[in-house]
Structures are given as structure tokens and as C-alpha cells.
């Protein structure tokens, strides 16, 4: 599904963001990517989207050889995966329905298909009743759910969420995480970059910890920090 082989990334200003990363994700996995700010997890997400180029090594996503991909192929890579960001990135002058439908319009999907898929995606995130509202009329959690619906509407095999709960209060964050977990149960591979310690600890999923550009830990049913192993987890 996703594989990074000996990947390094040095920015033009000399900052080394990633150093010899090897990572493999199988189909249907749910992986937390954790680490402090500046650890390199955002860079890793950018490499998967080919927003940045790896300086060394190879990146494979959804069967695409991202490293050798030409500029013209990038849109097709991005269509094959759903992405959710901390700042939602919705179109302010389009309704909830239009925002979600837009992801299908750009793929030149059939109108019939759009009319079928969009309500399904909105139902999945529980926003069917707010389809005709504009983003500014919604709460942060609802906006993020719209972004999720948009990410899912084309049925991607992989969902990448970069700090999806960074702008949300704890309770709403939980709702979003539960939704991500549910999406994963339906068969979508999910990568979540986050530093929400309590959520990571409670969900008991695979945790890949990055620090200073290096993978320091890769653990099934992991916790945010190693030393937290013995502290009680409430859930």
C-alpha cells in the first residue's frame, strides 16, 4: 500500500527533515504517525502526496512509484487517496454538498454517480441534514467531517490525515477519530499524523514515532511514548 525505502529529505536550505526512513504499510492498516513539531512527520506526509520530492530513496503509494512520477501524473496519484488537513481546506463559497461533489467533478465523474456518491459520503460523516449549509455556518468538527466526506467520496484506498484534530476541542477530536477508525473498519488504509497523546494511547493502533527525522519506534498497539507504558490509560 505504502512503502518508503531508504528515504531521506534535505530541504534546499540544508535542513535535514528525514534520514534514511524505511516504512511499510499494508492494506487495511491504521497507523498513527507521532512526534513533536519539526520531527519530520509533515515532511513524510508531503512526500506521500508528492508535494515534496525525496532527496534519496524510493516512495511507493497505492501502486504508484511516486519518486519517478512526472508532474502530469501527480493529480492521478492524489485522486487515488483522500487527504484531510488540520485547517479543513473547504471552499468557502460552496455549500457542504458542493464541496464534496467538487472532488468528483474534477475527476469528470458522471452526474448520476455524483448524485449517488455525495449523499452516501455525507451520511457516513453524519451531515446529511446540513448539505445546503456553507462552511462558515458549521462548527470546526462539522467542517472537518465535510473534509472527510470529500476525502472519501471517490472511494480512495488510502486516507491520509495530517493533524486532523489540531484545531478541534478534545470531545470533537474524539468524534473525528472514531469516524477515522470506522472508515478503517470499512477497509480503507488510514494514516494519521498527530500529537494528540491521549487519543493515540487510547486507540491502541500501530504507532510510528518520528524524532529528528528518524523513526525511533514502530509498534503494534503502541502508545504515544514508550515510558507511558506503565501509566494507566483511561478509555
Amino acid at each position, binding site marked *: 500500500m505504502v512503502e518508503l525505502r531508504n528515504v531521506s529529505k534535505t530541504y534546499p536550505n540544508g535542513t535535514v527533515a528525514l534520514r534514511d526512513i524505511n516504512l511499510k504499510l499494508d492494506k487495511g492498516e491504521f497507523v498513527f504517525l507521532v512526534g513533536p513539531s519539526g520531527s519530520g512527520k509533515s515532511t513524510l506526509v508531503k512526500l506521500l502526496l508528492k508535494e515534496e520530492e525525496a532527496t534519496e530513496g524510493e516512495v511507493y503509494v497505492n501502486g504508484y512509484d511516486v519518486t519517478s512520477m512526472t508532474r502530469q501524473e501527480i*493529480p492521478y496519484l492524489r485522486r*487515488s487517496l483522500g487527504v484531510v488537513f488540520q485547517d479543513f481546506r473547504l471552499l468557502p463559497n460552496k455549500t457542504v454538498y458542493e464541496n464534496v461533489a467538487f472532488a468528483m467533478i474534477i475527476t469528470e465523474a458522471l452526474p448520476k454517480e455524483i448524485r449517488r456518491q455525495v449523499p452516501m459520503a455525507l451520511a457516513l460523516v453524519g451531515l446529511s441534514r446540513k448539505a445546503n449549509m456553507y462552511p462558515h455556518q458549521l462548527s470546526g468538527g462539522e467542517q472537518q467531517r465535510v473534509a472527510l466526506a470529500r476525502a472519501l467520496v471517490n472511494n480512495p484506498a488510502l486516507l491520509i490525515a495530517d493533524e486532523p484534530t489540531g484545531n478541534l476541542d478534545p470531545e470533537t477530536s474524539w468524534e473525528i477519530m472514531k469516524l477515522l477508525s470506522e472508515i478503517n473498519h470499512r477497509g480503507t488504509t488510514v494514516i494519521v499524523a498527530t500529537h494528540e497523546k491521549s487519543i493515540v494511547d487510547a486507540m491502541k493502533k500501530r504507532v510510528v514515532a518520528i524524532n529528528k527525522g528518524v523513526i525511533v519506534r514502530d509498534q503494534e498497539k503502541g502508545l504515544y511514548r514508550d515510558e507511558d507504558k506503565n501509566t494507566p490509560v483511561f478509555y
Partner: protein
Amino acid sequence: MKIRTLRYFIKEGFVNSYRNKLMSLASVLIVVASLIVFGVFVLISLNAQHNIRIWKEQPQLQAFCYQELDDIQVRRVEEIIKADERVLSYEKVTREQALEKMRERLGKDAAILDGYGADIFPVSFIIRLKDVSYSGEVVKDLEKVTGIEKVTYSQDTVELITRMSQWFSLGCSVMIVIFLVASVFIIANTIKLTVFARRKEISIMKYIGATDWFIRWPFVVEGVIISITGAILAFIISACGYKAVVDKFSQDAFFAQTSLLSMLSIESIWSKLAVYYAAIAVVVGAAGSFVSMRRYLKV
């Protein structure tokens, strides 16, 4: 490209130009200005060509005798013209006819001729040649005939008009190029503002997998909308303006009577003008969009 996608591009293009009303209007006006300059040029050169063609189709010479020639000498000149094989037909203009023509030409001011007799005018012959290519040699031969003072030569006028229209074309071409380049850049600038206003939207589109061309097309459409609107306005203005000039021209006594120049009717040239305007508008609009995209929309 699919029809529904095309419809989406066109809709977005209209939305873009509407959101950017003021700049769109400014761009439309500059397009109108440059197209009107172009239109004036086209109209004048079409008319010049039309008149040159008329002149060329009528290879006419007018041979003037010396004013003091008596009837016998005039008849001798007439015999020579009659005998020339290159002459298709000729027409004698008597002193009285010449006086009458001058009276007509002067119209209201004909009174200044009162008190003068027809004898102040020379006898002349209007000569039509079998072929325009003879005119040069015929003029030379006639000028050697005793009794003929001068031969006016419509070829002179043709050359003058040709030369004038060449200079005119050159001047207009320079102006048109300047105006069209200005239009392209002003349209490009308008689109730059749209791109700037929509940069967030463009980045979102890129993240969800829109291709470069999917992002670009609405901006191309915006450029074409601006230039087509400009072309339509320019067409209306120049067609009405031209019609007014033609009407004025046909009412003018001097031109109407002398039939020295004739103007093409608006009916006969509007379609040509419309095609030129449409073609230029599409090219200028698309060029403006592409310039703006090369510079401001590095997706």
C-alpha cells in the same frame, strides 16, 4: 473534454469575470479601444481598395487641347485620336460642356463664372482605352500631338491612392500592434487578480487531484469572455459610426455629383468586419490568459 466539464469551465469563467467586475470592465474597454482603431483601419483600407479597383477598371485619359485652338485644329486632333487603334471610344467635351460642368461643380458659387464666356475653357477629349496597359504609351504619344496641351492620367491618382494607403496601413499596423499587445497584458493582469483571489481554491483543487488544465481552463474562458465582450461592443460602435459616415458622405453634394470617390455600404462589409473582430478577440483573449498563466499560475 466532456460536455459537462466544458459547461463547468464556462460557468466558472463567467463567475470569475463577474467577481472581478471593475478590472474586467477596464479590460473590456481597452479591447474596445484597440479593436476600434483596427476597425477604422480595416474600413478605410477596404474603401481605398474599392476605389482603386474602380479607377483601374476605367482606364480613362483626358486630353486637353490648347485653349486658343480653333475648330479646324481641334478636328485635326480629333482625327488623330480617332485613328489610334488602342482607343476604344472617345468623347468630345466642348467649351460649352466644360463651362456647364464647372458651373455644376461650383454649385452655389457658380455666379463667379457670370460674365465669362465658354471660350475661357479648352476643348478636351475623354478617351477610354481598350486595355489599361496601353495607358502609359498612349499618354506619351498624345502629348507629342500638336494642339494637345496636357493629358491627365488617371493612373496618377491610382498610384497616389496606392501610395497613401500603404503609408496609412503602416501607421495603423504599428498602432494596432501596440494596442493589441496592451490588451493582452491588461487581460493577463485582470486574470492575475482572479488567480490571486482564488489561490486558496487553486491549492485545494491541486490537493484533491485536479489536473493543471482543469485548473487553467476557467481562466482561459475568462480571458475570452472579456475579449468577446469587447469585440461585440467595438463592432456595434464601429458599425454605427461607419453607417453615419456613409450617410453623411452620400448627402454631400460634391462627392455625390462628381462620383470621385465611392464608399462601400455597411451591408456589404459588416460580415467581414465581424469575422475579423471575432478572430482577433479570441486570439487576444486566449493569449492574455496564457500570458497570465505562464506568469502567475505555476500550478
